[in-house]
């Protein structure tokens, strides 16, 4: 009976691993070697593509921008969404439900629709070509979902915990920092993972805001030409761009799996 599970699982695993193999394998070929033999194992591996991607395609500089912006945006997102989720789930104030519905509704607006007003706003605030501007932009675009998730998560926690803290003399900010933030860990971890990926992988918003400097995924996107693409160079770029995320996963593997598991069991 176990092979009924094992075989599909093995296929699933293979379908995840193969693209990684394809990328690394081809990153080590030169363009001619790739075109003549796309799927074969590399014959005389060279790291030239990695050198080119890092230097000539500026991915080295772009990586720094991506790390800064992603880190900044994720921290800001987690702090603001847990604050908002705390307020919406635990506190009573006028128009609370209306506010929540407005936030929910803003989830349904596609990015493309607001690009022009967004760009005007960023220009008006002088935030074009600043990393801080991109951090704010990511926070704004991804915040509605984060607020929704944190509100839903906090709504399942007993309100009595907040009341107990109030009886203990904690201010609202103290309650948030000492109780809600640590209690929100599973949801915050999930959001942290999701938003890291969103921010890291974003191209469109980053293209508009950071025009002089670039984030790494924009650098990767720019490696794709109008007509042709140097696939080995692109593969090298992708491998470089994916490396920090993979390292992050390896470092936080336990917490990430726990976070997902906790979320799943309690969800």
């Amino acid at each position, binding site marked *: 009976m176990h092979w009924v599970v094992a075989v599909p699982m093995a296929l699933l695993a293979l379908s995840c691993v193969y693209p990684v193999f394809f990328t690394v394998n081809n990153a080590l070929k030169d363009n001619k070697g790739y*075109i003549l033999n796309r799927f074969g194992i590399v014959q005389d591996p060279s790291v030239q593509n990695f050198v080119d991607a890092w230097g000539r395609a500026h991915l080295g500089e772009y990586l720094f921008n991506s790390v800064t912006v992603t880190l900044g945006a994720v921290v800001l997102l987690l702090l603001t969404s847990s604050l908002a989720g705390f307020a919406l789930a635990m506190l009573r104030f006028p128009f609370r439900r209306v506010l929540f519905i407005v936030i929910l509704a803003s989830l349904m607006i596609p990015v493309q629709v607001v690009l022009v007003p967004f760009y005007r706003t960023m220009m008006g605030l002088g935030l074009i070509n600043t990393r801080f501007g991109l951090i704010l932009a990511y926070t704004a675009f991804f915040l509605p979902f984060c607020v929704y998730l944190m509100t839903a998560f906090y709504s399942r926690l007993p309100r009595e915990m907040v009341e107990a803290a109030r009886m203990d003399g904690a201010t609202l900010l103290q309650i948030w920092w000492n109780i809600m933030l640590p209690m929100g860990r599973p949801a915050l971890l999930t959001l942290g993972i999701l938003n890291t990926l969103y921010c890291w992988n974003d191209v*469109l918003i980053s293209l508009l805001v950071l025009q002089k400097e670039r984030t790494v995924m924009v650098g990767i996107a720019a490696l794709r030409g109008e007509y042709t*693409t140097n696939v080995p160079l692109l593969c090298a770029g992708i491998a470089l761009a994916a490396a920090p995320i993979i390292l992050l996963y390896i470092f936080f593997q336990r917490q990430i799996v726990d976070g997902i598991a906790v979320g799943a069991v309690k969800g």
Partner: protein
Amino acid sequence: MKTLVLSLALVTTALPAFATELTVWDWKSGDPAAAAYFAKAKEVFEAAHPGDTISYVMQPNDQYYTLLGTALASDGGPDLFLLNGGAQARARFENALPLDGKLGDLAANLAGTADFSEATGLYAVPLTIQGFVVYYNKALYADAGLDPAAAPKTWDDLAKVCAAFIAKGTAPCIALGNKEGFGMEFWFSAIAASLWTAQEQADFAAGNLAWTSPQVVAVLQGWVDANAAGWFPKGANSTAKFMDEYEGFMRGETGNTIGLISDVAHWKQFDEMLGAENVGVFMMPAPGGAAAKLPAAGGIGYAVNKKSPNADLAVEFAKTLASAEVLQVFFADAGAVTANTQMDTSSVTSEAAKTIFGWLATETVPMAHANASAAQLEELHRQSQTLLNGEVSVADAAAAMDKVGK
């Protein structure tokens, strides 16, 4: 008071000491093959205009028009922006500065301006000329028992070539790109070039030649007939047209392919991959007896943002970009066929390229699909698939095309 303002204005325009940074958008400046050209243009311009600087912003090709549209609509666009000739360019003319009378001597030396113009004038400075020819693999011709030196000149010649390939059975006759998406516009323009009269080309461009007219139906019918005769490879393809069709050709998997002459200069790529001795070139013939022609159009060109506060300086830079001196680098590195007719192409060694440049001087006709709208091209992609699948008749496909507005 009036004189004071006037003299102040004179002083400010006369003083080059106001350092200006021109922002230039494109999707090419990061391309290794084009990088030297863009660097050269910047160098030449900055030397001529001390204190002023050029800032290239390269946007990824697939997001380029979205971003450009957003930036222009927000009044935050670049000073200059690169455009593809034809419909893509025309969609942005409302944001572009009319250039008639602003280009000086250069105006007389530019080809391909039609694709960057409207009745109201010229809106971008063309850099390159794009066109389609058929490249063929001489080694495969020899394998199939054909004379590698005898390129097909007529539809019947091509039919004989393909019959030989089919008889040999090892390689498909004509490479075909991604069957789900890229479609048939290269085929369409290449056949139309040889089939249509100059008047018919003009009528089609103006939208006066219906898709259901016999001339257009003949092009579509050729597509269906070629497929029925087994000229195209069978089966679905996985990657995009260029990756699929041309890389396959470069691996020696197909006998013939309709390719580009510029920007991506296929003659240059194919020479490198297949060996120059194996690359042949001919102009796509059309069903019937007409002489084959080379469809060509303005490839890419620079427009000046009409809201740019530095529009005059931007025009100057557009002229630098299109100057023969600077474009020479583009030609040498990327094999770009430039719009500047003063360009010296004598240094080229590729036999295929020499042949193409010879035709460019005498055999060029309009590139039909460059005048189709984005909506029409999208529908053409769809119809080309259903035609290959045999889901619709040629008449139905043509009727469907006519329903899509220009």
